[in-house]
């Protein structure tokens, strides 16, 4: 799972007011090289909840789109798309329910009593 995906995922358990961001408990993480697409990075930047990405990866605490020059772009690209969480848990910020991530794939299915 890339941090881009983590930045989009939200716990939608019944009764949860704000299920974002899911807290990450990492067990295994890898890095995979991904070709940099500046157009995509510039397009997706406004959608990113920066604090959630900062907490998940090592990035400057404050960022805005004027910073999207080559050096920062590389760091953003690396954090967003090249860090790969293989095995961990995504924890609902309100209910502490754990959504498992195994072999890089999160399972966000809810149980019967959670819908």
């Amino acid at each position, binding site marked *: *799972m*890339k941090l*881009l*995906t983590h930045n*989009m*995922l*939200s*716990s*939608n358990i*019944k009764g949860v007011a704000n299920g*974002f961001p899911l807290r990450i408990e990492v067990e295994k993480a890898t890095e995979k090289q991904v070709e940099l*697409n500046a*157009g*995509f*990075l*510039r*397009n*997706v930047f406004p*959608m990113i*909840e920066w604090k959630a990405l900062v907490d998940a990866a090592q990035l400057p605490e404050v960022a805005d789109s004027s910073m999207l020059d080559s050096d920062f772009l590389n760091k953003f690209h690396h954090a967003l*798309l090249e860090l790969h969480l293989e095995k961990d848990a995504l924890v609902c910020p309100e209910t502490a329910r754990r959504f498992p991530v195994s*072999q*890089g*794939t*999160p*399972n*966000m*299915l*809810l149980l*019967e009593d959670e*819908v």
Partner: protein
Amino acid sequence: MLYNVLRVIRCFYQSQHACSVLTIAHSLRQSGIFSTMREVNIKGASGLCTLVSDGQSEIPQSVSDSENMGKSFFSVQSTPEIEKKYVHHVYDAIAPHFSSTRFAKWPKVATFLSSLPSGSLVLDAGCGNGKYLGLNPDCFFIGCDISAPLIKICADRGHEVLVADAINLPYRTDFGDAAISIAVLHHLSTEIRRKRAIEELVRVVKKGGLVLITVWAVEQEDRSLLAKWTPLSEKYVEEWIGPGSPLARSPSSLPLESIPENEDNGSRDHIEDSMEKMHETPHLTSESKYDSLSLKHEKNTKNQQEYFVPWHLPYHRAEVSGASACALANGLAKKDDKKGAVVYNRYYHVFSEGELERLASGIDNAVIVDQFYDKSNWCIILEKIL
């Protein structure tokens, strides 16, 4: 009447709360608590709105929906038994074989994806084996499917995917640039769930974002295919819808044998999907024997939209997936020694002309920008406007 009232409310209050109104209305309808609505307190509205309703909705509904509203409360997000048994479990069992037959890219979907602006984030809800993920190399794709085995196939191919329910996408609102739902909604057994799935697709894209939906049509180009399908009477659909239904408590009480089946024709083989048939020439067989059967079937299926569509899983494939032994024991699948395959049934609600348009028209924050029929599928493109 319900929707007319909601339109009044929406015009009266700020349009940004339209989504809240629809959400609340859905919850109310689902709850079964109200037979008469007295007051609805709408979140964010400047005051209370008083509604009086006789509890009757003028929205056209299938019989199964009316039944659901009268039943005790369950969420639209709870998966009905018919979908668990005849969609989820089936795809889980047939995943590798199914994936091997899913390689042809449907041109209309490819065109849609290729025409998206470079750098778009595309969400594929019900991505199956990931056939369309990465089709446009200038876009980034995230796929999800309810079937973990299918998602594993996608992940093994290097795609960014997750296991999730299209009725309840675990995505933040307004995130993606586009979303696609290719041959998914026809596996949802109630109108409310089908509409909810469309709402979710619209929710997760940003304003101006596009949504492409394709579903199997009642009006199949190859009419002889219908003879291969098992039409389901409404009785079966109703009984299998709710988690509280008698069948959910004792699933063995309705073995597969008791569902009436069409005469099986041994000359038809390997044709599982009317769409794929156009692309997979080796699997075509001649159909002259079928003409009289299909005509007779057509007379009976004028208004029929609920079907079991068979999937033949060859024995050597079935052994790879241990799920088949279980399915055979539970009566969810049958052996066909003549064909050397385990036969599963997939539940389909095929769409009639205008049905997809009607569902989508009821969504206030999106407009239809294109709709068409192509190779036995009804298709629609929506644009999110709010």
